[in-house]
């Protein structure tokens, strides 16, 4: 009876690579991280997000006025004293915008963290355990997925009187984890049967250890993109809540600005400076986060990258569109029935010549 050699060969290099010094591994990780940032979309998004984070931290300190300080300059258009004009009470819109950044970023990230933790807990557990546990947890996440989240958040928040930021973040986080849980479950299902997972189970690792140390590192990209997606949703939800006036009236965020602008007929008074900057701030934050997400998506599946220049001009002036998956067929390629040309024609596509290989 012989031991299959292949299994020994597989084990030995495995041990060899595990015995390798840590530095080699770290170098590789660094290169990959660099590759992510070198993606143009991701880099743009990260820079934009960094600016928002900066303002979230320093906003309340650098704001020229207190956000609710009244003055006598009622509904002034932008000027040197008020960069983005004033409201119906003479409040400085620019200061409101700066001070509001902190609340928006806080709610977005806090809700994102809660939802991501829940989705990892439920999605990965469901995918890994399978069977009855999977059915139960999947049904739970499907229920949360189908129930419209925003109306639910609105109803819950309106019953909590004058909800503070952390409470809003909690409500949003607890109701918006289901999509990520679903994606994570699908990913875990496909990872679960891989050899390295079987191997770690065979060596007697505990279930939680397999999940945390074997599966999770392979799910990083999915988790990250889910987190970013939830932050977008949380920011939009918080602003929506503030806009319809169900949140605490003492904290400022961009939705509060829009709430007052809408309530005080900013439109009818043509006070564009009152509602345009806040909306642009939301849209640009959302764009930054989406760009980061596209970067992650393209990092994981390179096919999605928007191809660069795909139209190529051949020498005789024809244009060919290159595409992944198939070779362009040129009309001047050698064809058997019609005008056959010598293969050396420089305009033709590179001919594939079958080489005789000596046995």
């Amino acid at each position, binding site marked *: 009876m012989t031991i299959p050699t292949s299994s020994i060969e597989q084990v030995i290099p495995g041990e060899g690579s595990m015995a390798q010094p840590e530095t080699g591994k770290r170098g590789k990780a660094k290169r990959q991280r660099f590759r992510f940032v070198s993606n143009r979309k991701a880099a743009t998004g990260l820079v934009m997000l960094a600016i928002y984070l900066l303002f979230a931290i320093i906003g309340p300190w650098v704001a020229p006025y207190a956000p609710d300080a009244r003055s006598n300059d009622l509904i002034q258009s932008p000027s040197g004293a008020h960069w983005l004009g004033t409201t119906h009470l003479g409040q400085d819109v620019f200061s409101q915008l700066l001070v509001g950044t902190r609340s928006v970023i806080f709610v977005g990230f806090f809700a994102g963290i809660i939802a991501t933790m829940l989705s990892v807990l439920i999605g990965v557990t469901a995918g890994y355990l399978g069977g009855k546990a999977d059915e139960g947890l999947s049904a739970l996440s499907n229920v949360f*997925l189908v129930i*419209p989240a*925003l109306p639910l958040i609105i109803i819950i928040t309106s019953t909590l009187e004058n909800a503070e930021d952390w409470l809003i973040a909690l409500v949003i986080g607890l109701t918006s984890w289901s999509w990520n849980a679903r994606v994570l479950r699908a990913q875990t299902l496909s990872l679960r049967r891989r050899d390295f997972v079987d191997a770690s189970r065979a060596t007697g690792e505990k279930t939680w250890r397999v999940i945390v140390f074997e599966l999770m590192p392979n799910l990083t990209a999915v988790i990250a993109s889910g987190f970013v997606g939830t932050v977008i949703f949380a920011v939009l939800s918080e602003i929506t809540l503030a*806009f*319809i*006036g169900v949140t605490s009236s003492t904290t400022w965020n961009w939705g509060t600005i829009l709430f007052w602008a809408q309530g005080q007929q900013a*439109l009818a008074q043509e006070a564009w400076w009152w509602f345009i900057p806040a909306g642009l701030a*939301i849209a640009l934050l959302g764009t930054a986060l989406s760009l980061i997400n596209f970067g992650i998506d393209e990092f994981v599946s390179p096919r999605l990258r928007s191809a660069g220049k795909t139209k190529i001009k051949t020498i005789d002036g024809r244009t060919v569109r290159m595409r992944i998956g*198939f070779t362009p067929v040129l009309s001047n390629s050698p064809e058997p029935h019609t005008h056959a040309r010598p293969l050396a024609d420089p305009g033709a596509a590179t001919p594939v010549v079958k080489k005789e290989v000596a046995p």
Partner: protein
Amino acid sequence: MKYLLQRIAFYLFTAWAAITLNFFIPRMVPGDPVQALITKYQGQLSTQAIDSLYVLFGLDKDKGLWQEYLDYWGQLFHGDLGLSFTFFPTPVSEIISSSLPWTLLLVGITTIISFFLGTGLGVLAGWRRGSWADGLLPVTTFLSSVPYFWLGIIAIYLLTGPGSFFPSSGGFDNGLVPAFDQYFIPSALRHSVLPALTILISSVSGWILSMRNMMVTVSSEDYITVAHAKGLTDRRVAMSYAARNALLPNVSGFALSLGFIVGGTLLVEIVFSYPGIGFQLFQALGAQDYPLMQGIFLIITISVLVANLIADVAYLLLDPRTRKEG
């Protein structure tokens, strides 16, 4: 058929969960909201309305939670969603049934148009990757990040005003009575153009992006290469081979993201004061009209569930594999 039955069972379960959630939410309200409301509407509430309120809020001290829950279901089966405070003493069900058609027409039609338009553009953007169609991507990214209601505000600011064709608020001209005649219908259409465009512009980009990504993934499959090798026209390969297969995940995505879309469109109604469910919800929030809020949440959830079921049937028709098992 088995698949469909499974889905129906799931939706019934979800409906039960939503209703149960709806039952528990008012019980989270601190203090005695009914007492506060009675004081607020001094003398205007009938004894019957107060009783119904106590059942709704679960403040009926004599009964256990289980009995309350059963009573709640009993009320629901009679179509009794309680009485609205804002429009006292109109029953909630009456208010909802008068505003539901507006929302169904506006949101339903625009969502379907947006899905088909976005999917079509996504097919184009995915198939012609690297051409001008890639220029759509940054624009769609930006548009999908814009809150629906802000786009509505901008539309009102730019396109309405004295002498403009587009009215800035409402669902029809003030002097008209809702009826199917030659005065009312054009007026209603004219009022719905801007809200519809707002929803369309902000929701179409999501479909474009997801369809593009699916097309890109599908177009490197082997069967596409085979189709090309057979010498089929580019158009035929794009439509019958790539798009048909890329469409399936988008249809199931359509079902799942309906909940999100509906949430956003409610806000558009608020901005345009469009007489639909979203605007009613806004008024209910302002007046702390809990029965109306709950009723609206229930109706929205049930509508989304029904729409999901329809999307499932569409999926069943599109994907032969689900039919095969019989």
